[in-house]
């Protein structure tokens, strides 16, 4: 145990009180995870790998009971024993300092909530304040920008005005000074109703802007003139036409229609001529391009803090999804678990675990149900995450290939005990414990007969006395039957629990 350890598990004992007897699932487990490393936890089914990880999270399900031992969590010099903590304080740690990835991503994801919903849940539990502050800050920035934009606009309008008398000049200067003063002292206070009203007034004034009216006036005038000229032309054309009686009747009908149109246009034109250009009515709902927005920012007429906060959480979810290399994270965040493939679902679960930047990530067989090609992708992802985030990873697996490819150190478990812990290169080149050796020999190699470990994994109800491996061990001595070997450091950084190496 050194200062670099994030978690140290010491003599952990867990028992399950079942109807068929007491299952001694963990019998003095010793384990430690260092900062920024991947520790592989290897063992067969029922060796207690998952129970160890659940005990670290203090999630051992009933009828399991943690009977003894210590789990020390070290956080910047502070030490905490998670086993003596209150339930409320362990909840502060779960998901935030220690996060977990489970084996079956589909069983772990809730089918009726979207990906975004489920990832944001973790964030809302542990990072609510931080996210809220972020959202408030971004709202404040927008308020200030909006307010500044309005003031700038007002100032620009003042600049356009040309005062005549001394008195008006002085008043204008005064108003400009007031605006400049306001511009200088911007607060993050949300806009008052008065402020919003004055902003609306400003917009309305712009909408009925005289220049725009004049422009529309001229446009209308030109249009009417063209129409009138058209009608006139058609009229003269009709008058020149001659034909039989029937044709003449038709022409006369057309003439009468043209007369009504001509009268209509004349009336409209006369009405327009009565107005001055700036008096032209733009009509309801008329819009002038660029006038609604002030600068690039729409002044926040109303604030929905909730909506703003939600947007902030969404942004964070997308960021986390992007960090686990999910293509098109915005779309995926709106999907439901059944729409995801196995590899994708596992990535989402990893994203969920990473949502709070945990210091220790427990991965419980995260690639067991995945295909080899996807497994290779996930393993790479885990390795890059370790590099980028610097968090420690406890990687539980039974696949020695995965261990060799991705772990820094290996702990081998057998029947509720950690029997050997060493560097990964040391473990594969120089295994000491007979079980570790047998495990490594059972890897199938082409051209060689399959080597198996004789016997079966023992039942943990009434387990063997002494070393629990002694009935399958070819080196078993007398003391192995009676005395449990101690977990000792036999070489620098190489721990073994075996009587062969002085464990008695």
């Amino acid at each position, binding site marked *: 145990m050194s200062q670099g350890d994030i978690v140290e598990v010491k003599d952990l004992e867990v028992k399950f009180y079942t109807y068929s007897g007491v299952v001694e699932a963990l019998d003095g487990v010793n384990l430690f995870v260092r900062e920024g490393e991947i520790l592989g936890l290897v063992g067969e089914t029922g060796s207690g790998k998952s129970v160890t990880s659940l005990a670290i999270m203090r999630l051992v399900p009933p009828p399991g009971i943690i009977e003894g031992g210590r789990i020390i969590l070290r956080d910047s010099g502070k030490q905490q024993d998670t086993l003596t903590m209150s339930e409320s304080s362990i909840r502060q740690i779960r998901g935030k300092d220690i996060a977990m990835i489970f084996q079956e991503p589909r069983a772990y994801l809730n089918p009726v909530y979207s990906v975004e919903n489920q990832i944001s849940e973790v964030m809302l539990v542990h990072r609510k304040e931080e996210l809220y502050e972020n959202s408030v800050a971004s709202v404040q920035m927008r308020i200030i920008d909006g307010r500044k934009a309005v003031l700038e606009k007002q100032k620009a309008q003042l600049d356009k005005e040309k005062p005549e008398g001394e008195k008006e000049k002085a008043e204008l200067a005064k108003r400009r000074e007031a605006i400049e003063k306001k511009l200088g002292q911007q607060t993050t206070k949300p806009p008052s109703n008065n402020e919003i009203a004055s902003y609306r007034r400003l917009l309305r004034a712009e909408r009925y802007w005289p220049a725009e009216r004049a422009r529309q006036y001229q446009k209308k005038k030109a249009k009417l003139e063209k129409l009138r000229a058209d009608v006139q032309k058609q009229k003269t054309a009709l008058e020149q036409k001659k034909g039989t009686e029937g044709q003449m009747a038709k022409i006369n009908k057309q003439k009468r229609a043209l007369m009504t149109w001509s009268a209509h246009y004349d009336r409209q034109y006369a009405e327009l001529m009565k107005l001055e250009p700036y008096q032209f009515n733009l009509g309801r709902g008329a819009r002038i391009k660029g006038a609604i927005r002030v600068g690039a920012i729409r002044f926040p007429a109303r604030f929905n803090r909730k909506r703003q906060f939600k947007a902030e959480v969404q942004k964070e979810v997308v960021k986390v999804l992007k960090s686990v290399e999910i293509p098109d994270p915005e779309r995926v965040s709106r999907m439901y678990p059944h729409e995801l493939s196995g590899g994708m679902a596992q990535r989402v679960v990893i994203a969920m675990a990473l949502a709070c930047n945990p210091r220790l990530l427990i991965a419980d067989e995260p690639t067991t149900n995945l295909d080899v090609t996807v497994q290779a992708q996930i393993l790479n992802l885990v390795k890059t995450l370790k590099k980028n985030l610097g968090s420690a990873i406890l990687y539980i697996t039974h696949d020695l290939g995965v261990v060799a490819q991705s772990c820094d150190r290996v702990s081998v478990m057998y029947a509720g005990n950690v029997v050997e812990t060493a560097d990964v290169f040391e473990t594969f080149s120089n295994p000491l414990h007979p079980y570790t050796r047998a495990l490594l020999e059972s890897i199938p190699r082409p051209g060689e007969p399959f080597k198996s470990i004789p016997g079966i*994994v023992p039942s943990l109800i009434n387990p063997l006395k002494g070393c629990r491996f002694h009935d399958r061990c070819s080196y078993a001595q007398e003391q192995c039957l009676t005395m449990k070997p101690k977990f000792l450091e036999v070489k620098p950084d190489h721990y073994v629990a075996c009587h062969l190496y002085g464990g008695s």
Partner: protein
Amino acid sequence: MTSILELRQLKKYYPIYGGVFKRRVASVRAVDGVSISVEKGECFGLVGESGCGKTTLGKTVLRLLKPDAGSIYFGAPLDVTEQIDRLAKKDPRSPALRRLRRKYDVATYLGMDLRRLRRRMQIVYQDPTTSLDPRMLVKDVVAESLYAQGIAKGEEARKMVMEILERVGMSERALFRFPHEFSGGQRQRIAIARALVSHPEFVILDEPTSAVDVSVRAQLLNLFQDLQKEFGLTYMFISHDLGIVECISDRVGIMYLGKIVEYSSTEQIFHTPLHPYSQALIASVPIPDPTRRKERAPLTGEVPSPVNPPLGCRFHPRCPLAMDICKKKEPPLLDSGNGHFVACYAVSQSSGG
């Protein structure tokens, strides 16, 4: 060597029903034109990712599923299959061809023919917890096929059950117990005993070791090899664990999206894989040696849906060597020498084809 099993363009589509009248709207092309031959006495490994149709192929060969197209010749003499091929080329509707296929093509079998066939072919499933009836005693589980096939009954059947159970390493005490009383490895032994009690010639092993532990796995694999020698069995070993397949198989076929992309002897497949998918698959296997670490995943993306497989070569969207022709035409499975069959344009072009 004579071939015991010949598949010709075998297809199995699962229908997808939809719409108001629950009409067939699409199909999952689980097995889409597979042609392989399995030789007598060998272990043929079938490898592929989940959803590529390995298990469907196995079940279709056993006629647990009815194939949609193609032929299965089981134990048919070589001259007969050749004659059928000749006839099919000349006139696919000739009565002579139909007669021959009725007799030799398992895909056309019905009723008693199928029953008789089942004696000769058996299967061991992946998960013994679900494949063994929890309400039957072990003696009944194992003897069931003897009764059903009418091979033996009474004292004789009991003797046969005892013999085979002993052979797979179970003791007499197991007879009057239920499957749940055994560990995973023992249950798988019972399943093996059940498959072998009627002395079949051909056994499909559908991921038989993926539900058991490492130490037990080696025991089972040894058992498979011993039994093969003793009974002269032919195996089709379906697995996604390439490490095991490399050790146990004589020849290996690699499947991708319902198609065999490459098949050859184990050594050729694992040492000189030709198809880019096989290369990526073999490179993805984590090597249990920390000094040989791989830095990058060889493949990106995931297997596309078999409902709408990509046009042309099914691997082209993920293939590093994809050419224009791969997007348009499906590459045929061609021999590139030494019985090494590959379905890839890049390979057939580089070898001067």
